[in-house]
């Protein structure tokens, strides 16, 4: 995941649509009616809860910034059945701008991906002043705000509803990793990862399109493909469109890789390969590549790969190089690499590879 750092004073230049990836909620007189520590009993606002669930299904994350007693507030959220909706809730007496920064760091999202909902003008003003990238919303204007394009995700896929669970899995993994004593190899082995490669199905295409648009660091060509283009390629007998997904004992990382191969009789052309940065630290970047090399070797075809040096995808260049690819021609930043099919490496011992037909 990339952290977007805006220059001070510069406003977000990204398209507004779907910019908000996480909403940070106040509790007293926002999520519920009343002040927990004063009134003792508070009543939840069903309309707000409904909005939270709705956005959660569309893949928007939620968190909390509340000045409250942490244990009492968490107990109340638990009682309301809402505790698991909120990632990294910040319930303390610190400035809410600080709480939002903590959440942004923990989720590895840029501050411009955040909205903050509070009933108190003071809190909204403090956040607006300290972190102007954050979109502040008065709870009284919630419905009007949520109708704006930045609150409507660009992509709603079968994976969107799983996004929170994927982050929760990641929190559990991070905790394990912090406590882990031993080599990273041993840590990876303890995750029990399964890497699945399958031909793209129609229901994968939205996520596939999203991956081509979102992934820059681990993208071999930086090309994007539309849903319709991907659908045509999926059906084409001369092409192979493969989707990779990863799971471990903490759950699914979702669909994290995509490769497009044009199959010639003597030579296959790897037009595009990308991996989500979700799995950057999992040592699985070569698994999909090596699978394609094995398929080509089986078909008696050489493999040439298009590579466009974008400056941001050096990681992918290293992956190709270490899978035994060599440069055979170059036109500026456009490079053609060729694989050495005599040296195809098996998947690492810590990953179980499953191939679906």
């Amino acid at each position: 995941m990339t952290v977007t750092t805006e220059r001070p004073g510069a406003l977000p230049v990204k398209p507004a649509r779907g910019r908000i990836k996480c909403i940070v909620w106040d509790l007293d007189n926002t999520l519920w009616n009343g002040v927990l520590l004063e009134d003792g009993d508070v009543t939840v606002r069903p309309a707000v809860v409904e909005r939270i669930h709705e956005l959660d299904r569309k893949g928007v994350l939620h968190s909390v910034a509340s000045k409250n007693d942490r244990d009492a507030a968490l107990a109340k959220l638990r009682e309301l059945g809402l505790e698991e909706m909120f990632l990294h809730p910040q319930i303390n007496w610190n400035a809410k701008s600080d709480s939002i920064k903590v959440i942004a760091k923990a989720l590895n999202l840029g501050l411009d991906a955040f909205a903050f909902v509070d009933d108190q003008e003071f809190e909204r003003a403090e956040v607006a002043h300290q972190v102007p990238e954050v979109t502040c919303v008065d709870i009284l204007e919630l419905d009007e705000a949520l109708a704006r394009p930045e609150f409507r995700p660009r992509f709603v896929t079968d994976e969107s509803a799983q996004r929170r669970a994927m982050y929760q899995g990641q929190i559990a993994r991070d905790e394990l990793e912090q406590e882990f004593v031993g080599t990273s190899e041993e840590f990876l082995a303890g995750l029990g990862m399964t890497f699945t490669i399958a031909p793209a199905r129609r229901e994968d295409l939205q996520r596939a399109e999203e991956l081509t648009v979102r992934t820059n660091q681990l993208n071999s060509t930086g090309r994007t493909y539309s849903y319709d283009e991907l659908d045509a390629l999926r059906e084409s007998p001369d092409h192979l469109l493969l989707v990779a997904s990863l799971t471990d004992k903490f759950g699914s990382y979702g669909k994290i890789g995509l490769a497009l191969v044009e199959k010639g009789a003597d030579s296959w052309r790897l037009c595009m390969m990308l991996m989500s940065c979700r799995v950057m630290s999992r040592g699985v970047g070569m698994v999909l590549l090596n699978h394609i090399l094995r398929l080509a070797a089986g078909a008696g075809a050489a493999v040439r790969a298009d590579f466009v040096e974008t400056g941001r995808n050096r990681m992918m260049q290293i992956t190709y190089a270490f899978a035994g690819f060599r440069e055979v021609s170059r036109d500026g930043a456009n490079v053609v690499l060729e694989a050495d099919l005599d040296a195809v490496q098996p998947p690492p011992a810590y990953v179980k590879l499953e191939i679906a037909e």
Partner: protein
Amino acid sequence: MSSKTQILDFIRGRYPQAEIDESQDIFALGFVNSLFAMELVMFVEKTFGVTIPNEELRIDNFRTADAMSALVSRLSSDLAVA
């Protein structure tokens, strides 16, 4: 400490169970995954203050501590000339 020793120490630190010498092909041992590859490139660049140009990003330059050390010398002398 020579660059070769530093590289060997780095690899041994990551794979303490293996006995690796300077001429051993670490790819043949099945150690190298995409994560380690990336770390190896970053380690070499940071430790020896060099930038590995894309045309030098080849598996043969990283197979052994000997090869990596030769790459570092080559890149450092380029630097000195420039």
